[in-house]
C-alpha cells in the first residue's frame, strides 16, 4: 500500500491503523468480550480454553497468556481493548502502561510524578538524547 504512514519512525510506538486493526481484529474482539462479568469468570477459570474459542493466531494467544502487552500490540492489539485484560486482572492503566516500558511499577510511577518521560530523544528512531 502506498498510503503515507509518517508514524513508522516514532520509537517505542505502534499506531493502530486500519492495517493493525485488520491483523488484530479477533484479538481485540476477544478483549472486548471481557467486558461481561460472566466471560471474565470463564476466562479466569481456563484461559487457554477461552482463548481457543477465538480464531486468533497461536502467537496472539501466547502473548495474552504471557500478559506481554508489547507483543499483543505488535500483533494488532490496541491498548484500549487490551485494557480489558488488565481490568480482569485487577490492574490499573498505570500498571499496564508501565509494564510495557521495562521499568518496575515503582520506577514508572516515580518517573510520572517527576514529570513523565521527556519527548527529547524520543521523537525519532535512532535519535540521540
Amino acid at each position, binding site marked *: 500500500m502506498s498510503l503515507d504512514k*509518517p*508514524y513508522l519512525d*516514532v*520509537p*517505542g*510506538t*505502534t*499506531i*493502530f*491503523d*486500519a492495517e493493525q*486493526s485488520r491483523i488484530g*481484529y479477533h484479538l*481485540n*474482539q476477544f*478483549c*472486548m468480550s*471481557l*467486558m461481561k462479568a460472566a466471560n471474565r469468570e470463564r476466562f479466569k477459570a481456563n484461559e487457554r480454553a477461552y482463548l481457543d474459542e477465538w480464531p486468533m493466531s497461536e502467537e496472539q494467544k501466547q502473548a495474552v497468556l504471557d500478559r506481554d*502487552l*508489547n507483543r499483543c*500490540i505488535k500483533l494488532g492489539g*490496541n*491498548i*484500549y*481493548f487490551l*485494557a*480489558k485484560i*488488565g*481490568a*480482569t486482572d485487577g490492574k*490499573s*492503566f*498505570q500498571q*499496564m*502502561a*508501565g509494564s*510495557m*516500558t*521495562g521499568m518496575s511499577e515503582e520506577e*514508572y510511577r516515580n*518517573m*510520572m*510524578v517527576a*514529570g*513523565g*518521560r*521527556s*519527548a527529547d530523544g*524520543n*521523537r*525519532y528512531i535512532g535519535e540521540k538524547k
Partner: protein
Amino acid sequence: MARITASVYTSHVPAIGAAMDLGKTQEAYWQPLFAGYDFSKQWMKDNKPDVIFLVYNDHATAFSLDLIPTFAIGTAAEYTPADEGWGPRPVPKVYGHPQLASHIAQSVIQQDFDLTIVNKMDVDHGLTVPLSLMCGQPDAWPCPVIPFAVNVVQYPVPSGQRCYNLGKAIRKAVESYDEDLNVHIWGTGGMSHQLQGPRAGLINKEFDNAFLDELIADPGSLALKPHIDYVREAGSEGIELVMWLIARGAMADANGGPKPTVKHRFYHVPASNTAVGHLILENA
C-alpha cells in the same frame, strides 16, 4: 434562538474518576489536581447551561471494532454510564436533549459532515470524568448532555482542520434552533500522554502549553497541525487533542465574531499516565 456561550476543555483520565469515586481527592497525589477545578465548579453554578454539547471519544466501550464511526452524535433521551471492566462509575445517568441533538444532526449533515446518528449507547469515562470534574458529585447532572463521540482510536482519525470546521458547522446548527437555549460546548481528552509501548509515560509540558496558547490565540493555525506532530510531541494518545478543536471552532471568533475571554486556565502533571490541561473560554 439557541446560542453557544462558552467552551470548556479538559482531560478525561479514568484514574481521576476513580479518585473521586473512591474518595481520594484530598490525598497528596490528587489534591493539587482537584484544586485546579475549584474555580470551574463555582463557574458551572454561576453560569449553568441549558445543554452541554460534549465532544469526547469512546475507548472501546460502546464501539468495538465491529463498527467505528468517525463522528457519532447521540440523539437519545438517556445514556447509562458504562461498565468499562472495573464496574460502572457510581455517577448519575446522563439525560440527552433529543430535539436539539436531532436538529444539530440534520443541520450538520446538510453541511457535508457524514455523521452517524446514535440512539443507544453507554457512555464511558471520556464523557463522565469531565462532568465529574466540572460538577463534582451531585445526585443529578445539572442539565441535559448531547454526547458527540469522535474516533481517535483507529487511524485515520479526523484531521484537526476537519474538526475545526465541524465546530463551525455545529455553531451554525445551534444558532438555527428556535428555542432560546444557553449551550456550552466541551472538548475533552489529552493532553500529552502515551499508554502503550516502551515510550509509555511520555509527557511534553512545552508542547501542551504551546497548544493551550495557540488554542486561545490562533486556533485556525493550530488546526493545520498534522497528526504526526501530535504523536511525536504529545504521545500516541495525545491525538485526543484534535477534539478540542471541535469545541474551539464553535466559538464566536472562529465564525467572524469577537475573541473569547479566558476565564480559567490550569495545567498539572501527572494524573496517572497523563498531563491534565483545562481551559474555560467565554464568548464576549
